[in-house]
């Protein structure tokens, strides 16, 4: 029976980050990955602007900006697309059907949001404090958070406290009139959430994502595969043992403390410290088992909202892809979310567990390959969607912009498929909705926040912890730091 200092369940990117960090601290670490390759859900992530600074700092990993996507194209039905250029976060219009007033206001909204997200950003990298724990460090951290908000100044603070509960549609409609621009920003706010543009809290999700990504538009600048390889190398270099194509069946415990894990084949690895990179529901209800959890805790676990609603579509064309009305050198991140009402209608279906008849798309084009995020395609608890129908809908939207489509291969990966392949309950990008009641010290829920669990020696490092998903590695680093702190 093999023994390790630390076992990490799931070789998703947070798992690798934690493994790499812990191995640098001279811990003997084992990573167990279900699939043939590590990386987990990162496989579907098109967008990372940059490697988050905390990764560079702690793991000395810095992937170079290889793709240099700096165009954002918001498609419009009459081919009056808006093209934006992003120069290290500085946005400018290349072309648009919006008037000058709207262009100016659009950029100023984004600037305002940037200020707010910077303030929020300072909360993101740290372990969130607990409210009323009686612990001095927590109180100091809460005061420092309050102070940071106050430092915004009267006007900005007031605006932040207002928009934090507001919906994106209202704020945009107050300041803009151009549908395409409003659709574009609403898209960034709601993609990957269980909100529509008119749902209160949809500005918060935008600020939140912006804080994590350090940019309002999350762009494909880093090749994700490359980044994952670097993480894996970093693990290998520090002699982290990574076992692939192996599934953990059970987390073993004794007297409320972790003793190791058991694999599907029955094999057991021993350790007094296990970090789960699977989502909270899977970790607690499947791997640990509800039998050893308090009833109130089970209730909270079940109440955690984790219905995913983004599907991935991959289309291979016979020829290189040309988009109407967009020059080749302007290709970048394409978005089809033409106006607020369109997105809201797409969202309506999601509420009733149906896929959107007219979905929103975000896609990248690489020669003859198109890879798109399609929403809303909600995870279904007891059935499956008619995937062909969804593909048809997407193709019919794309055909408005791509002349003479000849498709040789098509593949749709629904949240249900993501759930099955990666053991992410609900197939949710962020392992759980990003709404106020599931953020910060309340993520994923009371009794499980701050990366710890009710079981001694068991930790969480997945996107289900603060600050959520988005390939930031913050979850992995914070969890690892928590482990190191507890081991002392």
């Amino acid at each position: 029976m093999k023994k390790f200092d630390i076992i990490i369940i799931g070789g998703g990117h947070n798992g690798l980050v934690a493994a790499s960090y812990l191995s640098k601290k001279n811990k003997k670490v084992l990573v167990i990955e279900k699939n043939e390759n590590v990386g987990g859900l990162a496989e579907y992530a098109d967008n990372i602007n940059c490697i988050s600074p905390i990764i560079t700092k702690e793991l000395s990993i810095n992937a170079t900006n290889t793709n240099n996507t700096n165009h954002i194209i918001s498609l419009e039905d009459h081919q009056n697309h808006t093209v934006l250029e992003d120069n290290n976060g500085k946005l400018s219009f290349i072309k648009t059907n919006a008037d000058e007033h709207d262009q100016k206001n659009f950029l100023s909204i984004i600037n305002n949001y940037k200020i707010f997200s910077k303030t929020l950003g300072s909360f993101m990298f740290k372990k969130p404090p607990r409210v009323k724990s009686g612990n001095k460090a927590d109180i100091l951290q809460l005061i420092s958070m309050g102070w940071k908000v106050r430092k915004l100044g009267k006007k900005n603070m007031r605006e932040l406290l207002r928009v934090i509960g507001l919906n994106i549609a209202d704020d945009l409609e107050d300041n803009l009139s151009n549908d395409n621009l409003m659709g574009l920003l609403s898209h960034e706010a709601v993609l990957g959430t269980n909100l529509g543009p008119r749902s209160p809290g949809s500005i918060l999700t935008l600020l939140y994502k912006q804080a994590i990504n350090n940019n309002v538009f999350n762009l494909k600048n880093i090749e994700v595969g490359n980044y994952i390889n670097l993480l894996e190398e970093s693990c290998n270099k520090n002699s982290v043992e990574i076992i692939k194509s192996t599934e953990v069946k059970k987390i073993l415990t004794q007297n409320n403390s972790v003793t190791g894990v058991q694999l599907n084949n029955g094999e057991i690895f021993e350790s007094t410290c296990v970090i789960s990179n699977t989502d909270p529901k899977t970790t607690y209800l499947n791997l640990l088992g509800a039998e050893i959890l308090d009833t109130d805790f089970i209730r909270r676990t079940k109440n955690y909202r984790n219905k995913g609603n983004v599907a991935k579509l991959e289309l291979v064309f016979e020829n290189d892809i040309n988009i109407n009305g967009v020059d080749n050198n302007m290709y970048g991140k394409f978005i089809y979310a033409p106006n607020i009402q369109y997105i809201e209608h797409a969202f309506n279906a999601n509420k009733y567990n149906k896929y959107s008849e007219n979905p929103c798309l975000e896609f990248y084009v690489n020669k003859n390959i198109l890879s798109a995020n399609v929403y809303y395609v909600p995870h279904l608890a007891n059935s499956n969607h008619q995937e062909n129908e969804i593909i048809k809908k997407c193709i019919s939207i794309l055909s408005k912009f791509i002349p003479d489509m000849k498709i040789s291969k098509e593949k749709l990966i629904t949240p249900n498929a993501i759930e099955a392949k990666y053991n992410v309950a609900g197939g949710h990008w962020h392992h759980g909705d990003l709404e106020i009641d599931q953020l910060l010290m309340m993520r994923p829920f009371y009794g499980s926040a701050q990366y710890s669990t009710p079981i001694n020696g068991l930790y969480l490092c997945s996107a289900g912890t603060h600050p959520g998903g988005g390939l930031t590695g913050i979850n992995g680093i914070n969890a690892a730091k928590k482990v190191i702190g507890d081991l002392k």
Partner: protein
Amino acid sequence: MNSSEISYKKPLLETPFHKRTSENCYSNNWYRWAGYKVVNEYSSTELEYTAVRNTAGVFDITPMHKYEIKGEDAKQFINKLITKDISNIQSNQIAYGIWCNEDGMVIDDGTIFCFNENHFRIFCAERNLNWFSDTATGFKVTIEDISTSIAALAFQGPLSCKILNLLKVNNIENLKPFHFDNYNIENHNVTISRTGFSGDLGYEIWCDPSQAIDVWDSLFKFNRDYKVLAAGMSALEMVRIEAGFIQPNVDFMSAEQALRPNRMRNPYELGLGWLVNLEKKYFTGKQALIRHKENGIEKKLVGLDVEGDKPAVGSVLYDNSKKNKAKEIGIVTAAMWSPVLKSNIAIGFVNKEHYKLGSNVYAEIYHPEELDYRKIWAECKVVKRQFFNNPRRNAVPAFK
């Protein structure tokens, strides 16, 4: 009446004994219990109480909540639910247990009947279907609320065994306390358990609602020589205080129902620490209870022997014999003059400086006297909560 049919004209259900209980309820004094109408006082609480202590009393306890637990994990489920270990429970044995929430605060108590490893039945005072169902997550068990499908009587008092014996209930005298078995009362199949609230010899009889009236009548069959009385809730309240039993939402707030978090109580505070087995592998609230045990308790529910003869109902408790120097240290949750003990008894919370047996505390009693209140400053001695505990209660055979 079909119990599923509801009518605003009958907000309360009638138990299967209603025909008999209403015939005997001369005072027309009723009590609400879990959505049922049960008798509070038939004609005289004093006589009903005396029957329980002297011959035998019959209580209609049908409104008790009853849950059927079945499945291959039934035993593990129970062991996760309650704070004590029932690993060694045998068929036909009954366990008394409490269950707590994650903070180690008591939700309810109940008696748990073991039919076999895969089949249990829980009888309790509060509704617990949701708590049981949520606790059952991950276990192979089914939980069913069978409250309406079983009629129940408590048959308590020194003559209870003798009368069952006269009714030719085979070998009833050898039924051990906290055990149950199937018996026959005048051609009706019933389950009898040796349990009860009275602190004396007594049984609880469980039968199909269709046989309820016949079973009731049988118990009164020898009334010419042995005067058995139907007893109401008032009498039950008296005997349960004497026996030192506590009731959720009377002596403490159930943790599932308390609005104010600081009204919840842990088992140590309730003097039920003996029901907690921290060696057991796992149960809800274990971690919190380990902490509670370490940290000690701030207050405890104790028995009080109160000076004088005026019941200390609802009294506030103080630490000093001199009223003007006294500090509040607790509150009385139940109090009565005990006719059988000839003493003035009470159950109440006192703080940690005063919960040791033999401590003295003082109760301010507002005693109503002819439209006026007499304020009495009564000395109380902290005593064991079990005021009345007759050796008959546990004797086997129960009757010679």
